[in-house]
């Protein structure tokens, strides 16, 4: 937050007048804010988009609730909200497959993609085998509404019971 606004905010907050502060910002001081922001050149505007996306994807921009000096992630698990920039623990006894293993048939091994043609028709050149037909081993589908935590779907698309 702009330090100037933060000072006003703190004062009004202490007086229990958050709503008043917000009106101030959105009405009068918003003009300054808009002026400040519109002076951004396009390049820095673009940087803001990229920075926001980076933070959102890595989870470094996650909005955490403060409880005293502790920061809490609510609603969802960290791995449901962080998509890159992390290192996994080693999983023991796992018959694993390396990411770049050739046993994965490259799902993109087609030529020419869409085969979009000008002549007298097109061929769908998409008859490839998709090597990624498995769903991730850990079995949760999404956020907090994973289907059944005791089920996981493995690389051969078989549903197994854990444990």
């Amino acid at each position: 937050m702009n330090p100037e606004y933060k000072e006003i905010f703190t004062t009004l907050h202490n007086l229990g007048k958050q709503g008043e502060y917000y009106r101030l910002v959105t009405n009068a001081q918003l003009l300054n804010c808009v002026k400040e922001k519109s002076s951004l050149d396009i390049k820095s505007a673009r940087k803001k988009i990229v920075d926001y996306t980076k933070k959102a994807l890595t989870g470094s921009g996650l909005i955490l609730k403060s409880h005293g000096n502790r920061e809490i992630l609510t609603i969802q698990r960290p791995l449901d909200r962080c998509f890159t920039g992390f290192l996994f623990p080693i999983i023991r006894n796992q018959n694993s497959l390396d990411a770049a293993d050739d046993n994965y048939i490259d799902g993109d091994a087609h030529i020419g993609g869409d085969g979009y043609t000008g002549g007298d028709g097109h061929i769908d050149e998409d008859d490839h085998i998709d090597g990624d037909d498995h769903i991730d081993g850990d079995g949760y589908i999404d956020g907090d509404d994973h289907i059944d935590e005791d089920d996981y779907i493995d690389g051969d698309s078989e549903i197994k019971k854990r444990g």
Partner: protein
Amino acid sequence: MKKGKRYIPPSSAGFSFFITGEHILLRVYYDAVCYKKIPEQERDDRGQFLPRQWEKIPLSDGGVEVEFSPESQVQHIVFNGKARIDALWRRYRTGYIVTITMSNNQNIDDEKNGKEFIEEQNEKTLFNVVLHAIVESGQVGIYPSKNRAFLTDEEKEVALRYKDLHIYAVGHGAAADWAFNKQGKMEIKVDFIPTVEVPQLTASTGSGDDTPLIFAFLKMCEGEKHHEILHSLTLFVSNYAGWIEAQSRRAAHEDDEEDKKTAQSIIEKQHLAHNRMRRGVELLQKSRNARIAFATMNRAMLLQWISNDRNRGIEKKESQYRWRPFQLAFILMVLESVVNEESQYRDTLDLIWFPTGGGKTEAYLGVMAFLFIYRRLAYPASYGGTVAIMRYTLRLLTSQQFIRANKVISALELIRRENGELFGREPFSTGLWVGGATSPNTYYQAVKMAEDGQFNKLVISSCPWCDAPFSKKNYIAGNDRFHFTCTNPLCDFGKNPKNLLPCNIVDEALYQNPPTLLIATVDKFARLTWEERAAAFFGLNGNRPPELIVQDELHLISNALGSIVGLYEVAIDTVLITRGMRSKYIASTATIKNAKQQIRTLFGRDVAVFPPSGIRCDDSYFAKSVPLNEKPGRLYVGYLAPLLSRQRCLEPLAAILLSAPIEVFGDMEAHMDRWWTQIVYHGSLKGVGNSRTLYQSGIPYLLERVTVENLKNEIEKFFPGFTDDKKLVTIDDFNRVADVEVKGIVEKYPLRDLNVNVLTSNQSAVENNQVFMALEKGRGESGAVDVALATNMISVGLDVSRLAMMIINGQPLTTAEYIQASSRVGRGETPGIVFVNYYKTQARSLSHYENFRSYHDAFYRFVEPSSLTPFTYQARSRALHAALIIALRYGNIGLLTNDSAGEFDRDNQAVRKVIKEMKRRCAVAVHYGQEEIERVHLHIDELVDGWRERADYCRANRIKLVFNSKDRSFDNLICNFNEENGLWPTLQSMRNVENSALVKLFGKVRREQQ
């Protein structure tokens, strides 16, 4: 039951680099956080119950470092044993290749049940990982790459051009980035979301004197002022010579003898281009016809630009309309070889090699306009018919370019009408010759479309000259005719009583009146085997055959398509030569490698690339890199989700990007639209289908979650604790909040209702065009597009200036495709962002991710050579017979008509001559040696024998042999691949190179039976 294998996300990430020095010391900075599940009933320091969720635990308090040197320990355990930092030192030449990695040291037992496993996995994962190596002492050297001794001459030239762009590190499990820090020390780091800004190239170059570029100046070339104009052109050319001299001086300072030699070879090509440009100016000095043609061409270009701007309400001075330097230079360079059949460079294919959006089309439209006029002046008795053939690979691009070329042709036609005596009675015209899916092939189809009001299927929906929209009355369709007319009385065409426009799209109309400029898809030429009427395009009724063949987007003529095209080219070239014309070939592309071999195989010609490159990649005189501080480049961002499957990894990226404009520019309407529309590129139709599903379910769900998070954050700034209410989960919940102040904030976070469109070959041309038009609409306009899911059909031809955001969903197969596709955004005022979504299980994706910076710093360097093999047995067996038939049917030797197939006589002198020419043409293109040439010749002989035997058999049995007929009493020489009523199954389109088969599944196959 077989134990399943499953993917395990990486536990380590790092980078490698090469370092030398007597005392090497690295300081490695690292950081991460983890999350700990809060048990029930735990309270915070104020005694409040904590929500049963996850607490963020910083693992280091910042600034923690470990040191490494070749002599020191190679491992540090960090974060209280949770992780380790390793350094692997390998001796290499005078230094070391060092690999620094951070690894998660914690284990999970796979035997745990699902819930426990997931929670432990979340607790033991290290998040927001940071790993930097600061080189305290020692020199980081260029990362070792391919030995130069193994490079071809072309690769050496490429290596020299990119000599100043160094690769210092490669990533492992992530990308690597490097830079000098404020203390001047090299800092190398792990980068999970790498970014590289690629500078734009500009065609606005030259000496600064723009006079010779101005159309209005050059159009005076035919009059008294021609000396002044020629002088100006001479100066224009000599300025280039001056730059070449500077290049020579620079080459002399290369520190490596091999580089000096390579630089010299580049400079020789520059000299060659310069000499040819000089010869172009000399031609203008010597030939009045050339001067008139040059002046008229410039006048036509000027008129079409003025008309274009007038239609958009823009008024400019005539002097503001001008060539880009490379366009004029190219025209000057090819002039002589275009008009002189005996020119030393007639058999050289001139390849315009310029980045997308640079103006290649105008350059060869200029050459064509020049030739159209020149031919009328030089050959008044035989100028008619088709003069140039322009070919494209994609139907979308073909119709776009047809509309574009119509402008120039219309301008020429208006000029001709003023000067009928000089330029002849036959109108200049354009014809679109493509498949039935894009334009009607018969009068009957055209009549039906016009009657049914399906005007959008008639390609042109407004006057090419005045832009007045068409209605039914503008389409004159009958059983034996089809025309476009303009009825706008203010239009130069509309005010004429005949008001016919000089363009046509119906095949039958084109066969009747072959257009001056024929615009076609390469596929359509497969029809030559079947269609005798197409002979009209090769010079009938005493007209000269076409003199110029233009192939746009050359890089797309590759692989299977390229191999088949290569054989049909043999036929077309043979026909033209048999008819007495050595046509000039021009091609264009933005991405090419190994052009020499590709052109030789495809067109049987030498190649001259224009503009020749400079000895460094940032300056070829006619194209220069624009420094990033002057103009933003295109920003590439890499992303790989190690946990998500190929089907789902797009989800978070797409949702977050969709939320970005509102979150980042909530109160800045001007910026809001800039990155509003997402173009999502896919390598396959299947990918589009998969993404479509995501955009219907997963992405909107995640988008709402992210929007709610952002909204809560904003509300909490002003009303702390307000969002603790557990009933506030969705945007709808927030919309129901009564508090006026909070409502004010909620209104700033609308949930986007996604308008998702698709651009694929599964859609009709009309549907795709509608999407293209919708893409022009800005945020808030009715029908504005939020997301367009596209296949590689957008890689060429999509030119919407407001588009600035693209997701490349999966690394495309080739760099050429990657460059072409990603160049579709950021073409206007807003600089582009290209997010590349890499797949965790795809080796190609991982490799590009780990080498993100080095790849993007110089990606033109990595353009792959095209592969095409027309003379392999497999390709020959598909299409060599078709080439033979075309050569003989169109060779003007009496075998054109359908019923003449039976008259084939291999001993006929004319037939022998055509076959000899065809063999010669094949031999020029085959580059595997004499043995291969003999194999091709033998194959031609076998085909000839086969045809003769069939003809003999039919004669003996009194059966009529035709090329193809549905009449069962006839015998067919050719038939479709799925039929058996002919000697040779033959292609209808050059894409259909493989047989298709129907697969029928009978019920389920039980797993035990497998």
